[in-house]
Each structure stands twice: as structure tokens, then as C-alpha cells.
């Protein structure tokens, strides 16, 4: 993996967007990827994937006439993303240990304590899309 190339590869917003999509999914076919990236056409997605591949940020697997892409497991981008994922996951895993014992046996007092995740809570869901964020 060449970090210099990775730095250049990440300078492009579409390539960052591709990487964000791949960071969410284990593996993604070129077709599925082109559907997710709507800012540019299919051909442009392919050429961006080539740049990411050469930079060592993304690896490619061929199966028949399909190509599948994933964040390169040996690369520095993968290292950073994996470490962050791991750190956030372990950060949440300890929550169970801190739950008071008495609570575990108790019946929830009200079913209105929680809300389904689909309810609009006023905070925009983060997405991996490129574009200006509201300040």
C-alpha cells in the first residue's frame, strides 16, 4: 500500500464517497456501487475505482463476469477505519456491565421509553453522501 498515492486518491470527493460506501458494506459489486453513487455516471465510478485500487485503498475480486470491491484489508485506510469501528464497538459493549442488577429483572415501566428507530428525531441521519453539511 502506497500512502502517497492514497493521499492523492482521497483528494477527490467521489472517491471518498465510494470509500464511505465500502466502509459500511463488507463487499459491493460494481453495479450496486454505481447505484449508490449518484453524483457521477457509471463510467466515472469505474475510473475512480481504478484509482482507489492502484492506491491500495480498495481491493477487487472477480467472480465470473462480476467484480466486487471492498476496502483493502491490508491498507492504511482499512487500519484507521477498523480501529475506529473496534473502539466504538468496545465502547458500547461495556454498557451492559454498568446496568444496575435490580434493573435487569424489572419489567419496563413504560413502553413509551423507547421509540422505533424510524421515528424522525429531528437530528438528521448521517449519510455517507458528499456535499455541504449544514453548519
Amino acid at each position: 500500500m502506497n500512502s502517497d498515492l492514497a493521499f492523492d486518491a482521497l483528494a477527490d470527493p467521489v472517491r471518498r464517497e465510494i470509500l464511505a460506501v465500502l466502509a459500511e458494506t463488507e463487499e459491493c459489486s460494481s453495479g450496486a456501487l454505481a447505484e449508490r453513487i449518484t453524483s457521477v455516471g457509471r463510467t466515472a465510478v469505474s475510473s475512480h475505482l481504478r484509482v482507489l485500487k492502484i492506491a491500495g485503498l480498495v481491493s477487487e475480486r472477480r467472480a465470473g463476469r462480476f467484480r466486487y470491491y471492498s476496502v483493502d484489508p491490508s491498507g492504511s485506510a482499512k487500519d484507521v477505519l477498523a480501529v475506529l469501528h473496534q473502539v466504538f464497538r468496545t465502547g458500547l459493549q461495556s454498557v451492559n456491565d454498568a446496568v444496575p442488577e435490580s434493573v435487569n429483572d424489572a419489567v419496563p415501566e413504560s413502553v413509551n421509553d423507547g421509540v422505533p428507530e424510524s421515528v424522525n428525531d429531528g437530528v438528521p441521519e448521517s449519510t455517507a453522501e458528499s456535499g455541504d453539511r449544514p453548519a
Partner: protein
Amino acid sequence: MSVLTLTAQEEVSAPPRVVFGLFGAGAGAGWVFDAVCDRVAPGAAVTLRAPLDPAGEPVEILGRIGTLRPGRLIEIVHDQPWRGRTVLRFAAHGSGTRVRLQSELDQPGFEWLLRRRGHALRSSPGENPALGLLTSKSGPGNLFAAASDNMATLALEEINADGGLRGRPVDLVIGDDATDPATGAREARRLAAAGCRTILVATTSATFVAVSEAMVDTDVLLVQTLMNEGGIDDALRIQLGERPAAQLAAAAGPMMRSAGGHRWFLAGNDYCWPRRTHAVARELLPRLGGRLVGERFAPLGTTDFADVIEAVERSGADVALSTFVGADAAAFQRQCHEHGLHHRCLTLAPAMDESTLARIGAGATAGLHTVSGYVETLDTDGNCALLSRYRQRFGRWAPPLSTLSESVFEGAHIWFAATVRAGTDDPRSVARAMHDARFDLPRGTVTLDGNGLVGQRIHVSEAVGTELRVITPG
């Protein structure tokens, strides 16, 4: 700005109301839930200690609580070491709770993490002219520097909106000294390699001195924007900011009158700026009617100040001159307050800033004073306009401005005015054009004489909650 979003999810065997209540409670619920904050309420300062480096110290993520929906959602808007939002959502799941975390990582944050993890990233000049900013995104200085890169970003956006440098936009390249002089020197060399011919330095003086020495053979202009002890004589070194002699001369009288006594204790971090400030105090205060009753130093990064506080107490001081900075200043002030020191003496802390006050918390700032050329509440037209643009650009939860961070905004505009005056961004010409000049800035008029001595109005301020309010006309 493009962001990557990382997600994590966990099912917890307790109802949402109970799980929500664990946040900020210090209940040993992991580093995310064990966030340090005085209260769980919108606007409250919050620190997350992320174990990003298993072998080293945790990385502090500094921010404020944004949106809060009890039992349902906590949003943390953070600024250090990168800007973004981390949102915790709580949903009933059977008899328990599903906790979902989403955390944003922007491009500068991603690059910061790559470097922090030891991945070498090439630094080569881009197509556009570049201005460097060396700041402290980690280590004890991360507190006072929380708004520094926002300030540089805002200044360059204004400069670029006006056409940039000879029609080209100026790129901002940011380095993190990790509040460590050797790291600062390495980062400054990286910024130079990335094409920065001028680097604004908004770190401790210890880093500025190390960077200045490390860059002695390069043709790069280094501008220290924030308060400093001066003393570096070189055509390619400019030291803006307040100087200890001017600060102490302005504050000594008002402090002794407010305290009703003249005994001073000097306490601060052990590096060049506090040492020089104390030296000036030892010389100046007796001439102004003060009497010195003690002095202590503690290394930067100290967390327990019991010995120092006991020494201040025993000395019977009326005024403590505190030259602690960043996280040390926050810890010292909180511990002084716990000991009730504010009932016996006032504190003058020249490097105390609004962002550090937010960490100390409104309940522990009684008796705290500062002396500076700028405070966020400064009532000038220039400052009102700046604050309005800042909030519009970075949102209501962005860290407060202070004399330390606002100096970066001014440093960028002073640099740009000098490039216009010089007709070039050649470092030597720009440095010359900064001298014998006056600049109208949010803090008021700032002058630089032929020897590089800064002139500006100095105000004594008192902490009221987490704000600084001017108590003396400059």
C-alpha cells in the same frame, strides 16, 4: 465537506430510560458512556477519552452536547481532534434497549488519524498557494486550541471570497503538535514540504521555540499569533500577541485593589512562557506595590495540584498568578475551587480562555481573572460581526472564541494584508511588510512597530460563569 460515517450497535438488557441515564454518570459503562461532563444538557462541555492508541494515552474528543431527547437520543458535536457529530440513539428492544452509535469522520479527521496511526502521508505542494497553521489538536493544549482551525478556516474563506492571492485561492494546511515541541517541529517541516511559505503557530511557546530552531535553515516565515514572552530576534520570526510585561502592568493594580491585599503567589507550568512571565512578575510587581510570597512550577500534563494549592494557602497570598495552560489550567482551577481557595484569594490567569472556562464549568470559576487583548464578549463592531459570521459558519455549539484562538483569525488577515502590501508571498518580503503597520481587527487596532513590538489595548476581565467580562477600560 465529505464525511465518512461509522456505526456501532449494542443491545443492552435494561430499558432505554435506564441506559440513557448511564451516560455521563461515570458508572464504568465504557469510554463512550463514561463521557466527562458536569451535566447532561444541551450546550454542556463533554470530553470523551477514546482508547485509539492501546499503548498510549487515550485521545480526547472534545465537544458539547447538542440535541438531547431524554431516553431517546444524545448528540455530541465535537471539535477536537476533528469536527463532526457522534449521535447515540436508544430504542426499546424487547425488554431492553438497542443503542446505536453513529460517528462522523471528515477528511481532515481521517488524515489526522492516518498520521496518528503512523501511516506516512506524502506532503507535496498543491497547485494553490498554502498557508500553514500549527495548532494543538491533542495533548493538554487541545482545550485552548479548540477554535483555532475554525478561525483559520473562516479567515481564509473570507480572503478567498475576495479573490485570494493573485486570483488563486489559498489552501489551509493544518499541523498538530500534540502539545509536544518535538512533534511540533516535525509537523512544521511537513507543512513547509506541503508548500507553506508562512506558518501561523498557535501552540505553547515551547513548541514555537522548538519549531523556530528546527526551521532555522529554511526560508519559511513563522508567525506566533497568540500571547508569548517574545525574545526571538530573526527576520523570519514574528511574535504577535500579548506580552507578560504589558499584561502584568495592566492587571497588577486592579487585582490588588479587588483582593484588598498585595501578597502574590506565582504558580504555573514548567516551560518558557510561564518562567518568563514569573521573571517579569518578580521584577515588576514589587515596583507596583506587590509582595511575592511564593512560587511553584509543575510540568505540563500535571493532573493533581494538591501540593501547589496547599503552598498557595499556606503563603497567605491575596492574589495567585496562575500561568498554567490548557487542561492543566482547567484542573488547577477546579481543584482550587474544591479547596475553597476563592474565599481567601483571587486568581489572575493570563492564559485562561473561554474554551478552558467551559471545561472548568460555571460553578467553579469564582474569583478567576484574566488579562488579554481580546475576550469573546468584547463589545466592538468588529467582534460582533466576527461572532455572527463564526456562529453562522460553524453553528451554535462550536467552541467559544478567545484571545488564543481569535489570534489565529487575525494572524491570517495580517499575513494576507502583508502579502498585498508586499505584492508577493515571498516570506522575507511579507515579514518586512508586517512591520511599521497597523491593522484594524476584531479586537481593535493592532500595531507592529519597526522592531516587531505589538501594540494593542489590554483588558482585565473577570470570569462570570463561563464568560469573561471586561472590568477595566484598556
